[in-house]
C-alpha cells in the first residue's frame, strides 16, 4: 500500500520537474505572451490537481479492471472515460451494457445520476464568461472534482483565470482517461494493497467543504447541504438519495431565499 501511494505521489512530481525543465529551456527565446499565460496557469493549476491524480488513478484503475473482468475490451473504458468523463455513471453503464437493450431506461438513469451538473452549471455561469474557445471544453469537462477546485481555488492575480480553469479540467480529464484505460489494459495484473486509498476523495471533499466554511461568513447553505443529504440518505437509502437531496435542497433554498439573501455572506 505504501508503495502504491508513493508511486501515486511520485509520478506527478517527476512530471512536474520535467515540465519545469522544458519550460525554463524554452522560456528564454520564444516567450509569446499567450504561451507565457498558459504556462503560468499550468504551474498554478497543477498542485491543486495532485490529490485528484491519486484519486482518479485509483478509481480509474478500479473501473478499468472492473470493465475488464466484466468481459469488455480496454476500448470501452478508454472511450467512456474520454467522452462521458463521469465516474459514477461509468460504473453504472457496465450494468446497463450487461442487461437488456433499453436506451430509454439508460437515458433516464444517466440523467438522474448526472443531474447535479445542473447545479454546477448554474454556479459557473459567471465564471466561465469570456473564456472564448475554452468555454465549451470547460462545460464538457465539468466533473465534481473540477467544479470543486475551480470554485474554491485561490487563483493568483497574475494568472489567467480561463487558462487556470482549462488546465484543471484538462489534467483531471487526462488522469481519469489514463487511469481507466490502463486499468482496462492491465486488467487483473495489478496487485497492490490499496485498500482505503479511495478515501482520498472523501478527504478532498472534506477539505474543500472546510475551506468554503472558513471563507463564508454565514453557514446556512453549507448546513442545509449537509442536513438535506443526511436526511435523504436515511430516508431513501444509499442508491436513491441524490435526486431527493437535490429536489429538497432547491425547495429549501427557494423557501428560505429571503432570510438567506438578507444574511448574505456568500463567497
Amino acid at each position: 500500500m505504501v508503495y502504491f501511494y508513493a508511486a501515486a505521489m511520485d509520478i506527478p512530481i517527476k512530471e512536474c520537474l520535467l515540465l519545469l525543465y522544458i519550460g525554463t529551456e524554452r522560456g528564454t527565446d520564444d516567450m509569446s505572451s499567450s504561451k507565457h499565460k498558459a504556462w503560468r496557469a499550468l504551474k498554478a493549476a497543477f498542485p491543486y490537481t495532485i490529490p485528484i491524480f491519486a484519486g482518479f488513478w485509483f478509481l480509474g484503475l478500479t473501473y478499468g479492471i472492473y470493465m475488464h473482468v466484466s468481459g469488455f475490451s480496454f476500448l470501452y473504458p478508454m472511450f467512456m472515460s474520454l467522452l462521458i468523463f463521469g465516474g459514477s455513471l461509468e460504473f453504472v453503464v457496465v450494468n446497463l451494457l450487461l442487461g437488456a437493450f433499453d436506451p430509454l431506461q439508460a437515458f433516464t438513469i444517466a440523467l438522474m445520476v448526472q443531474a447535479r451538473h445542473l447545479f454546477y452549471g448554474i454556479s459557473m455561469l459567471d465564471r466561465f464568461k469570456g473564456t472564448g474557445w475554452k468555454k465549451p471544453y470547460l462545460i464538457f469537462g465539468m466533473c465534481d472534482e473540477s467544479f470543486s477546485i475551480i470554485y474554491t481555488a485561490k487563483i493568483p492575480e497574475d494568472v489567467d483565470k480561463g487558462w487556470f480553469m482549462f488546465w484543471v479540467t484538462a489534467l483531471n480529464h487526462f488522469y481519469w482517461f489514463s487511469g481507466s484505460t490502463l486499468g482496462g489494459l492491465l486488467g487483473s495484473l495489478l496487485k497492490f494493497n490499496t485498500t482505503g486509498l479511495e478515501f482520498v476523495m472523501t478527504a478532498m471533499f472534506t477539505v474543500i467543504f472546510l475551506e468554503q466554511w472558513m471563507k463564508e461568513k454565514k453557514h446556512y447553505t453549507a448546513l442545509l447541504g449537509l442536513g438535506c443529504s443526511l436526511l435523504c440518505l436515511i430516508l431513501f437509502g444509499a442508491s436513491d438519495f441524490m435526486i431527493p437531496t437535490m429536489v429538497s435542497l432547491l425547495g429549501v433554498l427557494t423557501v428560505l431565499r429571503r432570510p438567506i439573501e438578507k444574511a448574505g455572506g456568500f463567497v
Partner: protein
Amino acid sequence: MESMTILQQVIIIAVCILATMLTRFLPFFIFSGKKPAPHYIQYLGKALPAAVFGMLVIYCLKDVSIFTGMHALPELISIAFVIALHLWKRQMLLSIAGGTVCYMLLIQFVF
C-alpha cells in the same frame, strides 16, 4: 442472457454521453443571452456551492454503515484528523494525504 450487439452497446453509451452533456450544457444554453440570468438563478448560483460541497461529503460516505461492521469509526476518526490537520496547517495537500494515510492505516492494521 442474450448479450447486446456492438451497435446496441454503442447506442447505450451514446445515450449516456448525450444525457451527461445535457446536464452540463443546459444551464449555459438557457442563460446564454446578452441579458443576465434572472435574480433567482443568480441567487442559486451563489447559494448552491456550499450546499453542494456538503452533499458531496455525504455522497462519499453513503455506503458507510453506522450500525454494522466498524460502525463508521475509521471514517469518523479520519475525517476528524483531516479537519484537525487542516485547521492546524491549512495545507490542502497535506490534509488530504494525511487523512488518506490515516484511513489506510486504520482499516489495514487497526480495524
